[in-house]
C-alpha cells in the first residue's frame, strides 16, 4: 500500500463488480510491539499483520471473504447467500490534519523496557512500599486502504500505544491505563503520582461527607462509556428507547455530548471510517436533551448527512457501528482547582476500581471507586473502596459544573469527560 492507495484493490473491485454487482475491497497492514512484565517473567513480542477483506453482492445475495497476506486477484470466492449488501456512496472528506507522530518508528525493545523501569522507579518515589505487580506497554501502527464500486477510494493511517499497570501496596491493588499516541508521551512521574493517590485513597476509611460529588475525568469518562450503548442506533432514538427517545432530558443545560471520529488530537482520529464514510462531529446531547442517536449511514434518514462511525477491529472483521471519541464537552473557563475549592464538603472521586455495572431495566449503575472525603474544599482522608451508585438516565441532570480538563479512557472506542461536579449520586459503601 505504499504510494497509490490500493491499486490492486481498485483492480479487484473492477473485476468483482462486473455484471452489476457491488464490491468493496479493504486491505490493512500493521505492526505492533509489546512488552509485558509480571510475576511469571517478561515477554517481548513483535508482530506484523497483513490482510484483506472483500464484500461483494447485490441487494439479494452477497458474501464476505477475508484472508492474510496478499490480496488474491483470482481468489475462489465463497458462494453468496440470500443476504443483501449495500455500500456507501463516495463522499468528500472534510479537511483533516494528520496528527503529529503518526509516522514515528515504534519504540525499540530497549526503549520500552526503559519506560517500564522508569515507571517502577517513580512509583517507588511517589508511593513508598508499593510495587508493580504487572506492567504492559503495547504500541502499534497500521495503514489501511478501501476501494469500492461506489467510488470510495480512501486510506487511513493510525497509531496507538497503551500502557497498563497494576500496582499493589499492603494488599490494596489498583490498575491504571494510559492510552497515548507514542511512548514518549508517557509521563512516568505523573502516572506514578496518580497511582499513589489512588492507593492512598483506597487505604483510608474516612466516611463520605454530605455534599456534592466531584468526579475526576477518568471516572466521569467511564460513566460516559456506560451511557454509550443507550445512545447508539435507530432504536435508541425512539420513544421506547432506553433513555426515553429524542428530546428526553438527560442532563443539565450545560451538558453537550459529542462523538467525533475526526477529533483533532484524538487517538483514533481519521478522515474516514472503516467504510470510507467521512468522519466528523455528531452532537448526541444538546443543552442537556437527547438530540439524536449515533447512526451509521445506512440507518440515517439522509445517508449523505451521516458521519462515519463504523470501525473495523481488523481485516477479519466487518465494519461495526460504535462511538469513536465520545465525550462531554469541557468548560474552557473552569479550572479544576476552582471546582475543588468550590465544592466545599462532599467527595472527590478519582477513578473507577472496576467495571461499571448497569441494570438494563432500571438504568441504575454501580461502580467501585477510589477517592477522598472533602471538607472546606480540601481532601481530609481516603474513603477506602466505595460503591458509587446512580441512575444512568439522570446522573447528568445533577451536573453543577464542568472543568476545563478533558481526559479520555479506552474501551470500545475512546470515551472522554472533564472533571464534573455532580449532585444526587450515592456512596453507600
Amino acid at each position, binding site marked *: 500500500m505504499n504510494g497509490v492507495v490500493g491499486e490492486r484493490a481498485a483492480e479487484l473491485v473492477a473485476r468483482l463488480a462486473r455484471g452489476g454487482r457491488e464490491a468493496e475491497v479493504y486491505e490493512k497492514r500493521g505492526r505492533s510491539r509489546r512488552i*509485558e512484565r509480571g510475576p511469571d517473567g517478561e515477554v517481548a513480542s513483535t508482530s506484523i499483520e497483513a490482510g484483506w477483506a472483500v464484500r461483494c453482492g447485490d441487494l439479494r445475495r452477497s458474501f464476505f471473504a477475508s484472508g492474510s497476506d496478499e490480496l488474491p486477484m483470482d481468489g475462489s470466492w465463497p458462494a453468496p447467500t440470500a*443476504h443483501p449488501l449495500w455500500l456507501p456512496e463516495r463522499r468528500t472528506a472534510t479537511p483533516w490534519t494528520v496528527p503529529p507522530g503518526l509516522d514515528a518508528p515504534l519504540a525499540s525493545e530497549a526503549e520500552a523496557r526503559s519506560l517500564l523501569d522508569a515507571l517502577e522507579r517513580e512509583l517507588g518515589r511517589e508511593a513508598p512500599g508499593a510495587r508493580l505487580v504487572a506492567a504492559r506497554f503495547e504500541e502499534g501502527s497500521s495503514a489501511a486502504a478501501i476501494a469500492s464500486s461506489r467510488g470510495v477510494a480512501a486510506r487511513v493511517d493510525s497509531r496507538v500505544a497503551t500502557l497498563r499497570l497494576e500496582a499493589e501496596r499492603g494488599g490494596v491493588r489498583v490498575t491504571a491505563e494510559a492510552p497515548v499516541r507514542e511512548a514518549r508521551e508517557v509521563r512516568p512521574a505523573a502516572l506514578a503520582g496518580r497511582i499513589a493517590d489512588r492507593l492512598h485513597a483506597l487505604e483510608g476509611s474516612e466516611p463520605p461527607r454530605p455534599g456534592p460529588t466531584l468526579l475526576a475525568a477518568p471516572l466521569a469518562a467511564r460513566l460516559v462509556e456506560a451511557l454509550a450503548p443507550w445512545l447508539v442506533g435507530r432504536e435508541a432514538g425512539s420513544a421506547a428507547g432506553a433513555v426515553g427517545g429524542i428530546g428526553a432530558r438527560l442532563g443539565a443545560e450545560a451538558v453537550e455530548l459529542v462523538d467525533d471520529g475526526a477529533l483533532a488530537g484524538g487517538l483514533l482520529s481519521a478522515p474516514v471510517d472503516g467504510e470510507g464514510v467521512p468522519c466528523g462531529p455528531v452532537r448526541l446531547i444538546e443543552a442537556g436533551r437527547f438530540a439524536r442517536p449515533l447512526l451509521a449511514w445506512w440507518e440515517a434518514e439522509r445517508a449523505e448527512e451521516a458521519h462515519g462511525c463504523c470501525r473495523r477491529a481488523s481485516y477479519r472483521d466487518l465494519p461495526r457501528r460504535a462511538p469513536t471519541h465520545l465525550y462531554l464537552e469541557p468548560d474552557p473557563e473552569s479550572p479544576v482547582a476552582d471546582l475543588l475549592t468550590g465544592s466545599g464538603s462532599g467527595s472527590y472521586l478519582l477513578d473507577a476500581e472496576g467495571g461499571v455495572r448497569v441494570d438494563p431495566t432500571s438504568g441504575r449503575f454501580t461502580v467501585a471507586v477510589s477517592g477522598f472525603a472533602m471538607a472546606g474544599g480540601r481532601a481530609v482522608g481516603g474513603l477506602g473502596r466505595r460503591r458509587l451508585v446512580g441512575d444512568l438516565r439522570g446522573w447528568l441532570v445533577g451536573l453543577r459544573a464542568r472543568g476545563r480538563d478533558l481526559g479520555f479512557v479506552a474501551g470500545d472506542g475512546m470515551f472522554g469527560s472533564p472533571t464534573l461536579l455532580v449532585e444526587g449520586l450515592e456512596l453507600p459503601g
Partner: protein
Amino acid sequence: MASPIATGFPGLDTAAVARALALTGAEAAGEIEVTFERRQELELPPEGASVGARSRREEGISARLVEGERSWLASRDGLSGRDLGEVLRQVVRVGPPAAPEPRIEIGASPIEPPRSAVEAFPGRLERALRRRFAAFPLRLTVRWQRRDLQVVGARMVPPAEREELFSLDVELPWGRCGALATELGENEAEALAARLVARFRAREAPPPAAGESAVVLAPAAAAVALHEAVAHALEADLLARGGRPDASLGVELGPASLDVLDDPSGAPDGVDRATDDEGMPVQRRWLLRGGKVDQPIADRSSARRWPALLPGSGFRSGRHGRIRPRTVHLELLPGKESTEALLGLAEGGWWVPEIGSGALDADSGRFVLEAPFAQRISGGAAAECCGRMRLSGRVAELLAGVVGIGAEAAAGGAGWCAKGGERRAVWARVPAIAVAGLEVEPG
C-alpha cells in the same frame, strides 16, 4: 467433521525448519520453537443481516525464544521461507544471518468447510422449535472454524494438531444464548431448541430474592463454575500473582469427594489435543485429588521456574498471542447422587440449568456467575422459574460448600474463555453438583 485428521500443511519439511532453528544457535542460550498456523472460518449470519456467507482464511508463523524468565515472540501473517527467516532474526535479535534464507514450500490447505451442515442448521433449529410448539423472534449465527497447528523445535517435532468446532450464537429479545459443538446435526438442534424454549418460558419470571442459598448446578452450569473456581484459580500465572504457585500443592480446597482434572486429550473428538501450543505432550492433570491441590495448570515457562509444576498446558488463541497456562478440557469425576437426591440436598434453593458467563478475580478469589434463569427447588423437584440470577462467592467457599456430586457426567462445550483478552473454546465433562451457601442476587 470434515477431514478430521488431514494435515493443514501439506509438503511442510519440518526437518528443514528444525535445521533453520539450529543454525540460529539460539538453543544454546535457551529454547526456541516455531509455530505454523492456519485458520479457517465459515460463518452464516442471521437472516436479514447485511452481507451473506462469511469466509475467513489466514495463515502465519510465529517464533519464540525463552531464556530464563525472559521470552521473545515474533509473528507474521505468511508462511514463506522469508517469513520464517524474519521471525527467527527477530527473536534471536541479531542482524541478517550468514545462513541462507530457509526454503519452505507449503501447499494449499486441503480442508474444505462443511458448508452443507452449516447451511442446514437454521432449518433444523426451526423444526426443533416447532416440535416444541414454540415460535419467537431470534437471530441465529452459525460458525464453523478450524485451526491447524504445527510446532517445530530445534530438537523435537511433535505431530501436527487441529481443532475443529462449530459455534452457535442466538440473539433473543431477552438475551443471548451460545453453544459449542463438534458435530452439527439433529441432536445439536434439539439441545439448543430445548435451551431456547426454557429461556423463552422464563423471560418474564420475577427476579430471585437476594440472600444466601443452596443451589444445584446442572452439568452445563457446573462446567462454567468449575472453570472459574478451579481451573482459573489453579493456573500457574494467576497463582503467581499471590506468591509461589508450587506453594498451593497439597492445599485442601474442597471435600474429599472432589476430584477435578484437566485433560486436553480427553476433549471431544475434533478438539482433543495430544500436545499443547508449545509442542509439549499434554497431561491428564489432577487439579484437585480428594479435594486437595495436586497439580496446577502450567506451561513450560512456569514449569521451568517452579520445577514441581508439570508443563503441557501452554495454549494461546493464535500465532500473534502469548502462550499462557490455560485449561482446555475440565473433568469432575462423578459422585453417587441421582439428580433427585441432589435436589433433595438443596430443598428451598435453586436449580440452575445453565450459566451464561462467569468471571474470577484472581487476587481476591471472588467469582461471579451469571445465570439467565433458575428454578426454585420445592418438594425435591425443580418448580417455578425466576429471572436472571447472579451467583457469587469465594472459590474456597464454593468448593467447601459442595455437598453432593451427581452420578452422571455430561460432556460438551463449556463456552469461550477470554483469559488475557485471548478467546479460546473450552470443554468439560462434569456431573451436576449441589452447593450450599452461595450468594444469590438478581442478575
